[in-house]
């Protein structure tokens, strides 16, 4: 039953309250408010789908939907309050390693859609500053949900992407006054670096794996668990190593588990080190060199063989994190353009100096005026999709 999650949340809330967290409002822990919001936000499937479409700009918000969204004003207010709290501890017990259940992610995503849909509604009513505030709350939710796992960081990234589209839309609709734009600039300047979110998740993967790589743990890796995680030896070398592997796992071989931990840590550190490299170089290392190295090792070393089924799609994740931060950089650059328009009455001929850079190339974005406004285009390609991203910004005539 769906309400079971509600029960857990309620009990968690009661428990947290007992621990003295709910002594005052807002609480010290933002998660308490988010859990509370998830309990209060229970739209029908139909309404949920409409709100989702409204948030992504697929449908216009009609009167009926506006009424439904306004009915959740109390939830939205608490989400904004939660966004203002520095600490967010979801109380998830990660001692189950990668078998840890993350059942709340779906609820968080739904709450973020409610925020963004309301931001679009406020924008349509001409309440631009309030609309931006809700986008800030969504970004904070994205930051808060990005706990210690890569997957929660990715959910945060997808919330941020939705928020970016909404901010872009608001910027196109609002009157371009310097005071309002400076406010938006300050707000965007305070957004956390989204790439760092993913780096935290990488460290988290180390710790999750440790739960299974500890020979003294009751959650230690066993041959059957390996099978459950989808491991199948394919090459002859793997089949040969598999026997050794099964033996070492069955005996909970201390030395082997230590080697396994060391190997895993070394590989994750290799990936983390790539984040300091320019995009193209990092992409090459993450998507080709390191995976090849792991594959080659896995044909010789049982610890590398075991690392493979555990390894998340780190190259893909890297590209997504850069794309997310780049989208924010493009919006920051666009705000500078709008500021020039606010001051001079017309769009600038070129991108103002000192704008945020295109992370795919490490250079400035390309700026081009269009019939509807302007575009900010990357100079570098996103290598995974083999695509040059461009971001459109509108200017009302």
């Amino acid at each position, binding site marked *: 039953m769906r309400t079971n999650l509600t029960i857990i949340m309620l009990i968690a809330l009661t428990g947290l309250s007992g621990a003295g967290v709910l002594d005052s409002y807002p609480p010290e822990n933002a998660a308490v408010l988010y859990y509370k919001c998830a309990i209060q936000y229970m739209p029908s499937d139909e309404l949920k789908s409409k709100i989702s479409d409204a948030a992504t700009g697929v449908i216009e918000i009609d009167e009926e939907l506006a009424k439904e969204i306004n009915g959740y004003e109390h939830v939205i207010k608490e989400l*904004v309050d939660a966004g*203002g*709290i520095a600490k967010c501890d979801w109380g998830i017990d990660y001692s189950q390693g990668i078998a840890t259940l993350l059942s709340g992610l779906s609820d968080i995503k739904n709450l973020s859609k409610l925020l963004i849909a309301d931001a679009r509604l406020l924008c349509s009513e001409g309440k631009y500053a309030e609309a931006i505030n809700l986008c800030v709350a969504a970004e904070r939710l994205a930051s808060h949900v990005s706990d210690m796992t890569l997957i929660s960081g990715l959910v945060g990234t997808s919330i941020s992407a939705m928020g970016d589209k909404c901010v872009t839309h608001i910027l196109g609709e609002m009157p371009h006054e310097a*005071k309002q734009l*400076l406010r938006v600039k*300050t*707000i965007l*300047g*305070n957004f956390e670096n989204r790439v760092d979110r993913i780096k935290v998740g990488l460290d988290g993967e180390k710790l999750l794996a440790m739960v299974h790589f500890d020979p003294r743990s009751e959650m230690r890796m066993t041959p059957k668990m390996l099978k459950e995680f989808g491991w199948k030896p394919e090459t002859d070398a793997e089949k040969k190593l598999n026997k050794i592997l099964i033996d070492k796992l069955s005996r909970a071989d201390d030395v082997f588990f230590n080697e396994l931990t060391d190997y895993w840590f070394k590989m994750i550190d290799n990936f983390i080190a790539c984040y300091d490299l320019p995009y193209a170089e990092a992409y090459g290392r993450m998507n080709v060199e390191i995976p090849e190295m792991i594959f080659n090792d896995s044909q010789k070393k049982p610890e590398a063989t075991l690392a493979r089924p555990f390894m998340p799609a780190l190259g893909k994740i890297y590209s997504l994190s850069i794309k997310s931060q780049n989208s924010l950089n493009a919006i920051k650059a666009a705000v500078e353009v709008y500021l020039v328009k606010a001051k001079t009455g017309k769009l600038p001929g070129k991108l103002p100096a000192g704008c945020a850079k295109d992370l795919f190339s490490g250079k400035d974005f390309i700026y081009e005026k269009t019939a509807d406004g302007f575009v900010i285009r990357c100079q570098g390609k996103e290598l995974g999709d083999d695509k040059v991203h461009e971001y459109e910004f509108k200017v009302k005539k």
Partner: protein
Amino acid sequence: MTEKTEIRLVQNAVNGDLESFGLLCEKYYAAMVAIACSVIADKHLAEDVVQTAYGKALVGIGGLKDKKLFAAWLGRICRNAAKDMVRSRNRDIPTEDLSQVKAAVSDNETSEAVRDAIEHLEPVERELVYLRYFNDQSYEQMAEALGISKAAINGRLKRIKQKIGNRLKDFAGI
């Protein structure tokens, strides 16, 4: 304090010696306040941030792998704590003008223009300025806190000062 002494102090702190942690905190206090100040633009709030960040650092010091990177690690904690503080304050303060805080303590137009120029720097550049001028940190101290070379600091500061100078000229209409 030599590098060797500092590493020993960090190791002692990791092993449970609170006084060693205190010595390290004292050594880097001014630098950390400067880092926080570069984000939050208010000395008193920056000091609060650093005090809180030290608490986080104490609880997390066991996770510090490379003992040589203590100062850079501590700086990151302070920077993040300051950003958190800004975010939580954004709720209450209209963010269009965080420099209001500074305006309140200034009655000097030139200082105001300098602060405005600093406000327009990139966050990394702003941090460098605060580190250098907040408490007259030497290049050596800055290098330790940022984990970069003295030569790099010198070069960057020169460029930053040029930027500030240009903006001041614009301000003065030169």
